[in-house]
């Protein structure tokens, strides 16, 4: 019961943050620009001699670029909205009025986590659904497996959220934000390095990428999501965030789920043990 009360109040709290509305505005602007771009491109194709097959692949590539933007927006928005919910409430003393209520501390943390999971889910559904819908209705292209792709992007957001929560039980708001964004940066770089290793089949470079993905699997989840959604030609675009040179396996997705659970477990344990 306490978990759901905390989840509800946290969802409402998160929904009032300016960063969420800023991200939604940015998302709306993105959908507008993306829709206009798609419409112009389709119009230009009508007056050109580009073969239909190639037209389809170009619009597919545009759709993947749009989905990648949504992915970045969703992960950054999830991290920034949740970064002060634990550390900020501890430092301000807001947590004292809740932590003395008759509910175990784990329910407070998990309830807050669920609230942000729900908020992140709504954001991903709106943005991802909007982009997919624009691709279909304006560009005539449907992502290959949009549900799998959307769920993987959602999983990536939850991983970033959980890591933010975990650091929030240790560090100040600023420090946990910097550490989480730093880890996302490591994952981003590692993903590119792993793809580059595909050209030369260089195992050392691939290892750097794999280790980066093990440290923070967010980018690996995106690459798997891209693989699920992209058309074969889009996947063959080299040096892009959705190239299929190096595709994370199912094991990496399972690892990301375990990573998430372990991070949540550490957050629950440390929040339960620390002084408030």
């Amino acid at each position: 019961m306490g978990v759901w009360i905390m989840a509800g109040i946290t969802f409402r709290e998160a929904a009032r943050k300016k960063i969420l509305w800023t991200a939604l505005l940015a998302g709306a602007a993105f959908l507008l620009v993306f829709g206009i771009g798609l419409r112009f491109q389709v119009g230009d194709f009508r007056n050109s001699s580009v073969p239909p097959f190639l037209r389809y692949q170009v619009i597919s590539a545009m759709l993947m670029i749009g989905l990648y933007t949504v992915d970045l927006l969703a992960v950054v928005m999830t991290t920034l909205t949740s970064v002060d919910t634990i550390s900020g409430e501890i430092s301000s003393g807001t947590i004292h009025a809740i932590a003395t209520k008759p509910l175990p501390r784990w329910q407070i943390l998990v309830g807050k986590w669920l609230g942000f999971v729900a908020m992140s889910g709504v954001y991903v559904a709106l943005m991802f659904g909007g982009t997919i819908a624009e691709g279909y209705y304006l560009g005539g292209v449907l992502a290959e497996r949009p549900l799998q792709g959307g769920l993987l992007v959602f999983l990536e957001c939850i991983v970033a959220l959980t890591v933010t929560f975990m650091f929030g039980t240790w560090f100040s708001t600023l420090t946990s934000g910097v550490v989480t964004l730093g880890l996302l940066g490591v994952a981003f770089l590692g993903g590119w390095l792993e793809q580059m290793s595909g050209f030369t089949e260089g195992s050392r470079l691939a290892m750097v990428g794999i280790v980066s993905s093990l440290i923070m699997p967010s980018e690996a989840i995106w690459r798997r999501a891209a693989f699920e959604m992209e058309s074969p030609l889009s996947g063959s675009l080299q040096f892009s965030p959705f190239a299929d040179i190096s595709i994370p396996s199912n094991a990496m997705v399972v690892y990301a789920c375990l990573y998430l659970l372990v991070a949540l477990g550490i957050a629950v344990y440390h929040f339960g043990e620390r002084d408030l």
Partner: protein
Amino acid sequence: MRDLTLTVSHGEIFGFLGPNGAGKSTSIKMLLGLARPTSGEALVMGAPPGDVEVRRKIGFLPENFRFYEWLTPPELLHLHGRLCGVSSDTLASRVPALIDLVGLTPHIDKRLQNFSKGMLQRIGLAQALVHEPDVIFLDEPTSGLDPLGRRMVRDIIRAQRERGATVFLNSHILSEIEITCDQVVFIREGEVVTSRDMRAQQEEAVRVEVRARKLSPVCIAGLAQWGDSAQVDEERLTLTARSREVLPDLLRYLVETGAEVYQFTPQKMSLEELFLNIMGEDRGF
């Protein structure tokens, strides 16, 4: 904290006093399970601090009460009531009554972001009472309040005692403690210095004001055997006697050493004077 040993009896208003940094808030946090002692033991209603079932019977007003600023007073009280397991039906009648009790009915539709510090203290007090707890911890409940607000808090605290609740009160406002509490404990550097039963008739120390002529240096030098803090200003002598019991002997001593006493007035020592006596005036209170 070190060697902090104290007992709070059921149904009393307990005052917890000490200078800044003495460990008052830390002690409350330990009793509420917000912080863990490195050693030692505490029991609240017979259970360890932090026990979920015990917390169902505890109310707490933090020193600087803060909560989500977009809530209105009824929303905040409903939330805290639900977290304490109070039914919606009960809250429907109790919440307006509590808001009225703390004087916030005119502001019932305002969001907390528009509240002053005193108003936040009031709604914080209401959330501490929303589940009618058996033990109430109040950390500086009147620090942001005007005189009317302080009186309101005093009346609420007394009403809680009448209801049978135990109140653990941490306050810097000694006059409030003096007229509200049944028992007070003074702590310094994490240790209990002394305690005082405010209901007791016999004072532990009594301030005496004497007006007398011919107070000789020999007489004044010998005053230390009856008490301390003796001050002489021409014909006016003030002294803190160790107890009420020594007063006849002190008067006899003054007369026998040649003083012509024409006024001898024992005074009840205020809590503030007692506090300064115990802590010293330069301890940063």
